[in-house]
């Protein structure tokens, strides 16, 4: 986990294209296929569908070989790819262990496995925190890192989801915003306080206290009707503020009755940015910008948020990681 450099894909001093394998469902192949022409210094080489009916989905990625299983990929086809992207639910945890055992750099969900144990491996593992790569979030973080808005004081996030966009587990729902808060403040919170409504246990609101008076107030609702979601993030700093807010980015559609709001799209830049960072990190033989310890910290805070909700107590951070 403490390693900062990894073996790079060099061939007699010449940099070569990274050959990527995707383990995922048809939906993932379609998403990555839509951005494949944006990728620098990497190509898709292999695809492993997680369900048999998705066998043809790899065509979206271009000219790739389709492996019938992850066992085949990591044994018989191990020489056909350099790194692996694992887009799978936590039930597929063993896949990540195979990638580590095969010495393949991996981009994977932070909830996929015993991530701490895998961090001891010699291969690079970059947790997939796609939410960090949204253009709006990147712009906010850049302003913070550049010192434009000063010391972060108060982070506010509203995330409201319709049923079709709602992750099944509470942990999956909370983790992205717990991570964003830790990322913005550069550490884990000292205090965690959570509320849920008795009338709707699917709703959760958490209040995080960081060092130096920093604070975050975040609510996640899953009760929007089918259709669009809503996301708003603002951060108040000591010398300025940044607002990444769907409310600001709405256009109007007139088609009878009241006008409808149309959100200006941020496209697929989040997915493309994350994948390129993974590829660049491999080329440059460095850690990815999302570290294993970031994922572990977000998971720990998420657990504290849930613990506060169930215990009705303020959770004090034991270790300020």
């Amino acid at each position, binding site marked *: 986990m403490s390693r900062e450099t990894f073996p790079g894909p060099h061939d007699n001093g010449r940099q070569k294209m990274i050959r990527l394998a995707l383990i995922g469902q048809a939906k993932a192949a379609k998403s990555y296929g839509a951005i494949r022409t944006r990728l620098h210094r990497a190509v898709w080489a292999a695809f492993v569908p997680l369900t048999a009916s998705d066998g043809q989905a790899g065509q979206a990625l271009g000219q790739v070989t389709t492996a019938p299983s992850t066992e085949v990929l990591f044994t018989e086809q191990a020489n056909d790819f350099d790194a692996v992207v694992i887009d799978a639910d936590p039930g597929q945890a063993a896949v990540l262990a195979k990638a580590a055992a095969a010495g393949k750099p991996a981009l994977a969900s932070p909830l996929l496995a015993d991530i701490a144990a895998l961090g001891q491996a010699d291969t690079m593992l970059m947790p997939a925190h796609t939410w960090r790569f949204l253009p709006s979030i990147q712009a906010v973080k850049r302003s913070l890192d550049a010192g434009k808005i000063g010391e972060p004081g108060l982070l506010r996030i509203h995330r409201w989801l319709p049923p079709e966009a709602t992750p099944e587990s509470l942990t999956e729902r909370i983790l992205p915003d717990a991570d964003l808060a830790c990322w913005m403040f550069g550490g884990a919170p000292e205090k965690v306080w959570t509320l849920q409504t008795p*009338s709707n246990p699917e709703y959760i609101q958490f209040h995080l206290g960081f060092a130096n*008076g920093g604070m975050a107030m975040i609510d996640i609702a899953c009760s929007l009707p089918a259709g669009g979601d809503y996301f708003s993030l*603002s951060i108040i700093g000591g010398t300025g503020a940044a607002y990444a807010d769907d409310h600001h980015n709405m256009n109007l559609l007139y088609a009878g009755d009241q006008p409808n709001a149309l959100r200006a799209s941020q496209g697929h830049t989040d997915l493309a940015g994350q994948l390129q960072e993974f590829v660049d990190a491999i080329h440059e033989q460095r850690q990815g910008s999302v570290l294993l310890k970031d994922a572990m910290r977000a998971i720990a805070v998420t657990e504290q948020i849930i613990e506060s909700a169930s215990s009705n107590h303020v959770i004090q951070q034991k270790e300020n990681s």
Partner: protein
Amino acid sequence: MADLRKKFRVAVLSVVKHDYLPHAVAAHPRFELVVVTDDADQPDWVHERNQRFADEFGISYLRDIAKAIAEYELDMAVVSSEAERHCDLAVRAADAGLHVIADKPMSTRLSECDRLVEAVQRNNVKFLLWNRNFLPAVIQAKEVIQSGAIGELHAIHVDFYFSKDAGPPKGTRQLGDPPINWLERQLKAHADGSDGGVGIEAMGELQIEGIYPLGYIRMLANANVRRVFARTATHFHQVNVDNHVDDLASVSLELDNGIVGSLCIGRTGAASHPDIGEIKIHAIGSKGGIVITEARPEVSIHYRDQPPLEFRNERIANENDFLLMDDFARALDTGCEPILNAKGGRDIAATVFAAVESGKTGQPVEVTH
């Protein structure tokens, strides 16, 4: 049957900060300012401001409240003093049988709020705590929620950031400099109208402005706050640091009826927003949600050589002042309660005090009702 032609005769009991309140009273056709009055033992700056306001309206300024009440056949009093005197002046007016409108915050002490609630009830007079519940966007939020469009209300959140400066930034006090005196700073701030915390007792942003967003929440959720958990900080202004009061706070709210909510509030500095600040209401229900910008409707105006501190967006169709006074006239005519009466104001103040305590202890605090 009420006489709708009756004009209520109003005394202004001290007018030492921004004078929007007595101006709003005077602007309504049912009310007439007839005298400004205050206690004789007040400092010179108080008398100067009272006199200036009396001169503006061409009415007398008496340095004797009892005498003014005895001589001017008053119906009501408007209190716009320092916060620590709000309740005492209001109680004295109520004990004289006068209806009362008081500026926010209700008081710097909950015991004073309780004393006022008791006086209003005992004297059977009406009391209105000044608020912003009739802003067009707030009315719209209320209509949407009451219509059932978002279903059963689950949670309500308000951001209430004033992007104003408050003297030197945090960290600018030099070694050996004395701490900034709260009252002196507030007196200087009178020039630009940012002296909402005027008085001897220092108040944080939660105490000074918390009434407004908590007033929205109380009205929209139709419930009192039962318990709070708060984080408070001095993040921006040296005067807040020197006087140990917050300028940034976040409060988790649990309401009596099971609804939860939150308030994020701060005096975030002029650089943090192109206008007066981000002020928003988010409400989420069983069938949907609504996002309201409190400033709307507004008109954007930009021009060459525009002063940097002039707001680029101008609120329009804001009838809050008129509607508050209309509401109070209705209360006086019919005996109904105004939109935010003494008990309601007291309960909001109790929420604020609980939040301040929670900010200090780091633990949830029950709100006493």
